[in-house]
């Protein structure tokens, strides 16, 4: 179970990381809009140039580091120089690739500082001093969290703030030119260069000159995945789109989703098992055929369609009824907190009835058909025939002999339930305006908020695995053969 969980964790992480935004995207999208509807209109404004803040956001969630293996510790002067060459306006790369290469270099952080300082110190490479100084300032820039002020010694904080200040003010001005590449336009270039080199010198800044141990351990332990799992297991997963910790948000929202899902599941199972039994016992009769066809008809209706229909006809004033019989939003009325308990439950039921109906009708069909098929199989088996032959009543054969056996498949189906409870019901939540986990996931996806999505999927996955475990135990309960094997 644990290897499966870890495997899913890795896949989940890699998939989301592949779709994640780059520094370029983040800087561009940082305008006064929330996704901007269809994203059709962009506002006329220049992209933000204040990259330090953007880099902060990347560092906080570990998105600045390579996903699974980090070999950046072994970058040397030549590698960085090649990297800088890619960002040259004359390089054969397309504009977007060049732009991305340049920003990726800024994200490398402390490992790139040493080589960049070497480039700056080398007079023969003066063409690159402009972009190198910019990259150096951003790589060496120290992110300070409010917590750091309590954690780190005062003189160190003062030094970091001072160093940030020096780095910021000593970037050598340069311009890009399609003919000559980078051209330095700064009259003060020499002095600035020296100040930058001094600011990151080995004597005061051991973090920029890591030893071999640090480089090797970084391969596995200074990766995006390591940061992510660390945050996950310490509960520090931070969602930058919601500006809060992921588990706090989920903690606030799960109850709503679990409540409607739970009732829907109970409704579906308590309804469909008896229905399946009934139609198995009346196999081939008119009743069986009517229920089967009726259920398949229901099954074929997509839930967003049924939901919209119900919303329009039963929740909208003046559509079918002058006064709508059901509420159109939320799970409780205003002030329901102070209702008496019975009225409170009634109110919940009144609000939840249509959402639960939409959630459960489809699984109703599937479950009852499974039940029917399984029971039929058991009823046709030898032991059932024997039971009939020895004169048992039909009730006795069905409930005493066959039901338990036919439940085995149902348990398999039920193993997914626990995970399902947490996975949200997007369409129902949208239509009936219920702020649950489904909507949370949607928002997270829209904002490319990987920690948020991973946080909630990991919970579902964990619960799914636990569900499978419980199902395995239940097999033993209903099936004596399984029990005897391990007894």
């Amino acid at each position, binding site marked *: 179970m644990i290897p499966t969980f870890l495997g899913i964790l890795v896949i989940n992480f890699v998939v989301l990381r592949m779709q994640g935004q780059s520094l370029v995207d983040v800087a561009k999208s940082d305008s006064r809009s929330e996704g901007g509807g269809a994203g059709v*209109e962009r506002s006329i404004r220049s992209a933000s140039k204040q990259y330090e803040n953007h880099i902060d956001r990347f560092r906080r969630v570990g998105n600045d580091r390579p996903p699974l293996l980090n070999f950046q510790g072994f970058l040397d002067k030549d590698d960085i120089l090649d990297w800088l060459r890619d960002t040259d306006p004359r390089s054969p790369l397309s504009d977007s690739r060049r732009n991305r290469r340049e920003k990726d270099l800024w994200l490398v952080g402390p490992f790139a500082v040493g080589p960049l300082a070497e480039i700056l110190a080398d007079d023969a490479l003066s063409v690159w001093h402009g972009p190198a100084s910019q990259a150096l300032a951003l790589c060496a820039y120290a992110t300070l969290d409010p917590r750091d002020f309590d954690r780190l010694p005062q003189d160190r904080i003062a030094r970091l703030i001072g160093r940030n200040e020096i780095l910021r003010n000593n970037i050598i001005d340069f311009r890009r030119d399609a003919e000559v590449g980078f051209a330095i336009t700064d009259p003060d270039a020499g002095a600035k260069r020296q100040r930058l080199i001094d600011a990151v010198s080995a004597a005061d800044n051991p973090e920029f000159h890591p030893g071999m141990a640090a480089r090797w351990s970084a391969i596995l332990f200074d990766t995006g995945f390591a940061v992510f799992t660390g945050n996950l297991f310490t509960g520090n997963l931070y969602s930058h789109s919601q500006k809060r910790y992921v588990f706090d948000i989920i903690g606030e929202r799960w109850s709503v989703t679990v409540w409607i899902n739970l009732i829907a599941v109970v409704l579906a199972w308590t309804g469909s098992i008896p229905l399946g039994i009934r139609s198995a016992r009346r196999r081939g009769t008119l009743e069986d055929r009517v229920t089967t066809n009726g259920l398949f008809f229901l099954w074929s209706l997509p839930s967003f369609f049924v939901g919209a229909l119900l919303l329009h006809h039963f929740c909208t004033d003046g559509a079918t009824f002058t006064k709508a019989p059901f509420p159109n939003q939320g799970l409780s009325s205003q002030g329901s907190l102070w209702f008496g*308990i019975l009225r409170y439950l009634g109110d919940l039921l009144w609000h939840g009835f249509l959402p639960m109906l939409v959630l459960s009708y489809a699984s109703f069909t599937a479950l009852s058909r499974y039940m029917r098929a399984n029971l039929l199989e058991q009823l046709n088996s030898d032991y059932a025939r024997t039971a009939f032959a020895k004169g048992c009543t039909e009730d006795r054969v069905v409930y005493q002999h066959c039901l338990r056996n036919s439940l085995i498949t149902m348990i398999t189906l039920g193993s997914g339930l626990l995970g399902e409870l947490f996975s949200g019901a997007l369409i129902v939540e949208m239509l009936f305006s219920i702020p649950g986990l489904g909507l949370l996931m949607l928002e997270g996806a829209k904002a490319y908020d990987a920690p948020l999505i991973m946080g909630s999927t990991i919970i579902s996955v964990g619960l799914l695995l636990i569900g499978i475990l419980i199902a395995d135990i239940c097999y033993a309960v209903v099936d004596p053969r399984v029990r005897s094997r391990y007894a």
Partner: protein
Amino acid sequence: MEKLKIALLGLVAVLLLIQIIDRNREPEQMGELKKSLDRLSAELARGVTVTGPATGSADPGPGTGSRPANGSTTGAHTWPAAVPPRDGNPTIGVNFLLPYDRSWYDPTKVGGTLRSINSSPKSLNPLTDQSATSSDVHGLCSDSLCSRPPYAPEQWREELATSCVIEEDYTVYRFTIRDGIIWQRPTFAGSPGFEWLAADVPLTASDFAFTLDLIMDPAVDCPSIRNYYEDLESWQAIDDRTFEMRWKRKVYNSLSMSMGLQPTPRHVYGRNADGSEIAKDRLGATFNKHWFDERRAVIGVGAYILESFEPEQQMIFVRNPRYWGVADHFERREWKLNIKDPEAELTAFKNGQIQAFGLSPLKYKSEILDGKEKRFAPLDPKDPKAGRKGPFGWERFKAMSFTYLGWNMRRKPFDDRRVRQAMSHCFPKDRIIRDIYFGLGQPVLSDVHPDSQYYDHELKPYAFDPKKARALLAEAGWTDSDGDSLLDREIDGKRETFSFEIKYFANSPEWDNTLGIYRQELRKVGIDMTPKPYEWAELVRIYEDKDFHAVVGGWRMSWDIDYFQLWHSTQIEAQGSSNFCGFANARVDELADKLRTTFETDERIAIVKEIQGIIHEEQPYTFFKSGEGIFIWQNHPVAGEAVEPGRYLRDVAIGLDSFHPLSNRTNWFWHFAR
């Protein structure tokens, strides 16, 4: 007996469950109780009764009384004639601000709760959260130094500043802050631990300086705002009432950046939760995760106080009884934060749970044009105000945006102006707007909205005229020489047929249809165009790499007209530039540079008009249409239905008629019947 046992057991289980659910509500109930107690004690500390009428705001503040209150409830409102030099247009050395207007306000109309939909803000921090909702919140709770009044959004009006004097060739702005403005108190002020917040704090110039201290601190996570203040040299509170901003150079952008500055409460954001001062060097990093934001609180000096905020549920604002100015007529405002689906929005509107909102074009088609909802008055092509008659009112509103088809001027055949002009002549703009956009949108000829004072009405549209297009193409060398009904031309010794791809957004049925029609029209002229849809992220890459012959796009416009980013030749090679069509024109460069340092309105208009003329002639874009939407509101009950108190809005039409068309949704006049 067996069955009885099971039944009893079941009963006990159900009772137990009920008990558990009931117990579970207790912490929430206690929390709610505590919140209302906090609120109550804060109100008591302030010495104001909780439910008393908001007479405070009816009290005329400084500067009123000079003009009689205009209580007209019908017909268009007339605004006070501006007396020069206070005409709202920037002028050196004098206070040019339009006076603060209180004439529309009528204390007898105050009351009721206005309910609307919004999305849930992630944070309420005034600087680090840049979402639209967050700025809506600060719009209600706070004011800025000066503002753009809805009846004249291209001019400036006094607000927190009673005067603004610009000096030294438009590089120094000196504001006089209005006297007697008091900061709102947070709802939890006075509760244990927060006694230090329960005091009246006056607004002073230092609160504005504090805002800029924060914005300019590189540690504060507001890079996009800081970008705008790049040219700011210094700022200081000269005394409590005087605030000065000094810019490094004369740049037009500095005007709105200076005038639009909102104050940040120094007495809250400059302190820790225990009331102690935050050291200056750690202010920036602390501000990003400030304790005040974690309490989901916001305070300002504005017309409404945020009373409660339940994320994804609702936000409630109440009138600020000590507001210095005149507020809208509503006692309370509620924002529903849980409604996300267009279907659910419409249902909430029809059930009267929200009073006004914007209808999507598709819903406009089904509900109004197809007559699905009888409470909307049907469209009357002769009367643009026909929508005001029904029980649900509806009217079109204009948005500051436009869409276009862009031609890559670096590549053949679009490097030829005549070809681009011909492309514009083949585009049946009016027909497409009518048939595909249901008439929502106004054809545009440039990147200035036709309702702006900067728009050049002399521009002659490129009428739909395939014959003329064919002539222009022939002039450019495109003829059908081989009789395959497609135009062709010799390029570099090879005969090329005129065929190209146009790239556009996937999942946009409107664009699918628009380009479908355009394709047919071009085919008749002898051009083979293939529309090719792309996902948004990919399209952004295409813009950046200039990897297209033709592309569609849209821009949001701003009141501060600037031609640098879109049309300046230095922007062609700039990284991630917006001049991806490769437009370069020496005269436009010169004018765009000049526009950036010109403040006099008349001169600006002349420059903008000249640039529009050049761009119109060059046609780097085939400009398409401006954005438009449908605004709906609760108008009046259906005949025979009883009036539901607090449901139907009055005087919406006055605002629609008397405000500038580009700001017509402002709710100044709205109120409920008493």
